[in-house]
């Protein structure tokens, strides 16, 4: 007999059966060890166990969130008590709330507006029954008897997927058999081998004995593997796509001058994208333009010709958080073109570069809007590159990550022709825009296209997962950092 079995048997002899937890504490063993020992004692015919079915209730993450913030219908009627809402302006959670509130007769819809009923007005701001029960369940202090009383509410919550109901076998009572009573309180060797230890293997003492069996259906705790973040995994896979196509990775600053983010890319100085409304300007880093006078003159000239307005160096020197990673491409483009103009053999053409990095928007953040997120940028510098080459490269890169894409004309100040590409999402039943692309203007490269042409594109990363992963419903979900969410992720 194993020492755990001896301990458990002795405890049963001395104190009788009450609960597994009690037994565990008497034996100074863990719940798993006790349950294992009981199995062993049962197999050896020393005890008889009587089982009963016990309902167990587990609150799901969504349920836990509602227990914390209130049910969608509770929140909806609380909002409605303050102001009426149009059906069309409801967000996802409010839509769910609407469905339940309607069922409960708390709201009615009239002419596209959601209105509180008399009953709804009474309940606004209070906890609904389902909410009260859910809260108790989530906090864990919920007696069995109450569970029986609130049966209906509980089955409602289960149907909504907020809680999980299951039944498990629990021990009702344990009785010692005659063999058990007669068993000596010491290990007599026995004919079964329990837990394997070093000495059993070294001495071969298991020989001639049977191995104790495990119940393969026993409940164990599922281990949550430590994992890389889903977004970082997605970034790795897009990087693999670029690598497979022969691109070299480059990077550049996130805190950048307007010059590299906008001016070098031929974005006019009065362009709305440059408004502080949309862009984060840095208040405590200031520096003059670092670039060569010749280059600055060239940019100024291009703006004058293209936009017919004065170009201001102070505007260009303002520091900001980059709004796209195309600023990285711009820096490398300038460096490479300058080097090539001094030494045409410096690089073998075409040169393929990519970067992945964080970009920023001055947004009022909520669950749908993020103020910083990832973007990638691709760049090919070569001779006689064509729009059809651009289509080929992008088609292959996205094929690597499993998306079929299509192209249509679009406009960005830095490319001509300009392209927008999108992928069809079976999940959304529509084409989802992935990003912009095109052939960089000569105003940016500073070189006639006869000598050098440059293909460029700058798609987001997150939309790839939005389309591919059935469990993701909005881009901002990918930036979720709740441990429970990451622990419940599956591979896609």
């Amino acid at each position, binding site marked *: 007999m194993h020492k755990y079995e001896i301990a458990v048997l002795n405890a049963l002899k001395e104190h009788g059966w009450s609960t597994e937890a009690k037994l565990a504490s008497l034996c100074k063993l863990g719940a798993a060890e006790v349950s294992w020992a009981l199995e062993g004692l049962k197999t050896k015919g020393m005890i008889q166990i009587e089982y009963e079915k016990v309902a167990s209730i587990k609150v799901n993450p969504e349920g*836990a969130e509602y227990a914390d913030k209130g049910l969608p219908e509770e929140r909806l009627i609380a909002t409605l008590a303050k102001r009426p809402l149009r059906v069309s302006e409801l967000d996802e959670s409010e839509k769910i709330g609407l469905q339940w509130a309607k069922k409960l007769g708390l709201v009615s819809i009239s002419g596209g507006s959601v209105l509180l009923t008399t009953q709804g007005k009474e309940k606004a701001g209070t906890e609904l029954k389902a909410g009260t029960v859910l809260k108790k369940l989530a906090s864990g202090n919920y007696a069995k008897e109450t569970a029986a009383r609130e049966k209906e509410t509980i089955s409602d919550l289960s149907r909504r997927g907020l809680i999980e109901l299951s039944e498990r076998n629990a021990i009702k009572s344990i009785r010692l058999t005659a063999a058990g009573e007669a068993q000596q309180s010491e290990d007599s060797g026995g004919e079964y081998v329990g837990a394997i230890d070093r000495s059993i293997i070294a001495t071969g003492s298991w020989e001639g004995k049977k191995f104790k069996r495990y119940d393969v259906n026993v409940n164990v705790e599922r281990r949550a593997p*430590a*994992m*890389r*973040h889903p*977004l*970082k995994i997605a970034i790795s896979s897009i*990087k693999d796509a670029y*690598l497979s*196509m*022969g691109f*070299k*990775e480059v*990077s550049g600053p*996130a*805190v950048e001058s307007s010059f590299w983010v906008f001016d070098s890319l031929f974005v006019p100085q009065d362009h709305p994208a440059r408004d502080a*409304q949309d862009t*984060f*300007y*840095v*208040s405590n*880093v200031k*520096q003059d333009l670092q670039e060569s006078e010749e280059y600055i003159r060239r940019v100024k000239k291009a703006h004058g010709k*293209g936009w017919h*307005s004065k170009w201001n160096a102070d505007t260009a020197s303002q*520091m900001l958080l980059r709004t796209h990673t195309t600023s990285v491409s711009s820096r490398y483009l300038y460096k490479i073109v300058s080097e090539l103009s001094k030494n045409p053999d410096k690089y*073998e053409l075409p040169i*393929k570069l990519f970067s992945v990095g*964080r970009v*920023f928007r*001055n947004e*009022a*953040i909520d669950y749908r809007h*993020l*103020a*910083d997120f990832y973007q990638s940028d691709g760049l090919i510098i070569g001779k006689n*590159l*064509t*729009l*059809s*080459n651009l*289509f080929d490269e992008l088609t292959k890169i996205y094929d690597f990550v499993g998306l079929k894409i299509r*192209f249509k*004309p*679009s*406009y960005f100040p830095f490319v*001509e*022709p*300009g*392209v927008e590409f999108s992928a069809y999402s079976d999940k959304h039943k529509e084409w989802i825009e992935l990003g912009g692309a095109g*052939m960089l203007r000569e*105003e940016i490269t500073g070189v006639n296209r006869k000598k050098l*042409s440059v293909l460029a594109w700058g798609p987001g990363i997150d939309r790839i997962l939005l389309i591919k992963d059935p469990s993701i419903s909005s881009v901002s979900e990918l*930036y979720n*950092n*709740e*441990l*429970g969410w*990451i*622990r419940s992720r599956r591979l896609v």
Partner: protein
Amino acid sequence: MPVIQIDKKYLYGLVGASIDDKKLADQLSKLGFEVESADKDHVSVEITANRLDLLDAVGLARTLKNFMHVSKRFHYEIEDAKPAIEIEVDRSVRKVRPYISSLVAYNLDISDESLTNMINFTEKFCETYGRDRRKIAMGFHDLDRIKPPIRYASSSDSSFIPLGGSKEYLFSDILKNHEKGMRYGSIIRDADMCYYPALSDAEGVMAFIPILNSERTKVTTNTRNLFVDITGTSEFAVNKTCDLLAASFMDLGADVKKVRIKYQSKNIDTPLLEKRYISIPIERMEREIGVAIGFNNIISLANKMGYEAGAVGKKITFRLPEYRLDIIDDQDVIEDIAIGYGYEYINPTPIYYFQPGRLDESTVKNLQLSDIMVGLGFCELVNSYLTNENDNFSKALIPEAQNAIRMKGSKTEYITMLRTWLIPSLLKDLSASLNEKTPQNVFEIDMAFRIKDGAAVESYKLAGVSIDPRANFNSMKSVVEGLLFAAGIKYELSEYSHNSFIEGRCASIAEKGKTIGFLGELHPKVLKNFGIEEPGTGFEIDLESFYSKR
């Protein structure tokens, strides 16, 4: 990008043919514009920021007619060169709003629909291309109610009856009290406060520029002859806008006449409607698009896109449509040929290429470190770079550093600066995961920011936090030692003092005598500040020394 709503019946009337919704969406998509929504009577279209000549039904109809081969019209000319009226420009506007252009349109049949269309167009155009009237503003007047001579000048405060009003107001009152004055007043207030730019005729003020027109000269459905003024800060933009409007009025069947603008230094007659040509070798177009389109085909594609075109030797000469504001040079024309050809018909062509790809060294190293951390049982998190003083400093009990990079004009108080370290981000995440099973082991590898010698410094950091009832200094030390050993770093630990950690349970990590990080037991107050009530430990390492060249 601007979205316009168009009355379908009005549009089809202008095109001269009815188009079903699906076909319309398809044709617009081929041109690069997205139909956002459509109902029985209206269609909403997103127009790209370059094609502001398409901000109304008239412009859209003009382009669709050529594109769908319904009918052709390539240019817009005024045969009668004699100006119908004159505007004298006083030098006093030079500092405020120096440029003006104008046209008159006779025999216009203004219906309710076209009036609505005209007003919507003006508003959208002045908002977008006109940068909210700062760069361009325009006004429509009933020509028959104007008594020449017309003068554009800055004057001292005067009064007039504003559009929609019944009594006189002073300019200064309008700036203070009228909705339009409050909204657009800053455009002229920046420049000069004592003088108000205005357009006047013999009877008085016609318009307080660029804010409000007068009631006296307003346009109604009875108006037959129209006077248009366009003012702004860019002579090019003012004149091109006038060309665009001229084309639109001609499309509506009006008889458009020029207006003489008498500047101090020169006279010009607007709309200029200058003939502009661009010649491009066929070979260049085919080389850039990557398709052998062929000589004849290019000319018909040019027509489809609204250009008159002809061959001269191996070049095609394009006459640029007068209403286009966006064509800078041949690159823009080549794009139009590609659009005319159809992006969906351009076959992807491979680039002949044989070089291996390569990852940035930091990417490779960071991935290796992530693998080690996952192996040590830590889950990876990805946090925002953006934070605020409270989260980054106060909650962690460290003093606010002056060298944090701060932003101005943020829309939310939660975003005021770039994070200087990672541990607060992780603690914030864990405060949202209180119900999860312990141990909660998390890490992040990403950027933190600071200012050094006046310049922004961005560096990769690796931070880990463990929330665990059994967490203590030694348990985290064993993690950090495992990590540093596997990463091949020769390190030394020494006693260290850091406000976020318990005194006497904190160590610095040094490599070759240089401190690269720290680890320790998080102070109970810090944990509590983040809403965590279990013991916690953490470490953070600067990764810059891990990379050989950066």
